[in-house]
């Protein structure tokens, strides 16, 4: 415990705020019937996760999270919702009565198992760091140690762009 009005205390308040953002956003993303609302909840949860990254000593990852996840992916999702969701949305009827409680039980069991695993395991003590994990070192490692994976990621992105263009183009000529 630490006094509220100190640097650590206020940082703890901000941390609680980010956790609330994550939980609230994930609740909206999983429970909203309207898909646009679900995408908005997803964006809120992503911003919370970006704050978590900031607390984990990686402001660069936090920036990338906001830029790519909360920016690009959510905008792409909104476009897909507008293109693919019929305006007079027909309610999805065939719904098993046990679907909701069953999903909750399965997800709760998995999350509880993971959390119990995290608490039961005795994690080895933190070793001494070889560097501080600054952005400069991240860039250098990406261009030297991980350069093959880096090039492969760009190849995968190229394949994804061309593949999604081909997939979305198919069937347009049919109508």
């Amino acid at each position, binding site marked *: 415990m630490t*006094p509220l009005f100190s640097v650590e205390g206020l940082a703890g308040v901000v941390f609680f705020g980010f956790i609330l953002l994550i939980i609230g956003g994930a609740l909206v993303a999983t429970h909203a019937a309207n898909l646009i609302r679900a995408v908005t909840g997803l964006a809120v949860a992503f911003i919370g*996760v970006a704050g978590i990254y900031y607390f984990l000593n990686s402001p660069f990852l936090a920036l990338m999270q906001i830029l790519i996840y909360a920016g690009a992916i959510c905008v792409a999702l909104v476009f897909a919702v507008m293109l693919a969701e019929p305006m007079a949305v027909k309610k999805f009827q065939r719904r098993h009565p046990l679907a909701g409680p069953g999903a909750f039980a399965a997800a709760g069991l998995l999350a509880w198992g*993971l959390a119990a695993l*995290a608490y039961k395991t005795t994690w*080895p003590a933190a070793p001494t760091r070889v560097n501080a994990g600054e952005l400069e070192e991240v860039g250098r490692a990406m261009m030297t140690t991980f350069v093959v994976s880096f090039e492969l990621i760009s190849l995968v992105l190229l394949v*994804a762009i061309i593949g999604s263009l081909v997939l979305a183009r198919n069937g347009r000529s049919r109508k």
Partner: protein
Amino acid sequence: MEIPVIYNSLHTYLLIAALLFGFGIYGILKHRSLIGILISAELVLCAASVNFMAFNRFLAPDPVVGQVFALFIIGLAAAEAAIILSIIIAVYRNYKSIDPEEPAELAG
């Protein structure tokens, strides 16, 4: 007023990741549209990346590796989202629906 300092322990971050994972699995099982399932799958990917970053911060000798890995996860998630969205749009053109039970022609 006092407040517990919880942002300096590995367990907190692992708990957050487990929570995100649980929400993602729950959404995948519960959502009744393909886009909703994709939204929940993004939550699961985010949980994995939070786990990597937590281990990177507290247990790894080289704090660069986890950040690079999380960046790769973000890139792969972007590619995956693009492909799945175009598949969903193609399915919608053919079946006029994004209900995951409509495209069942291959089912025996």
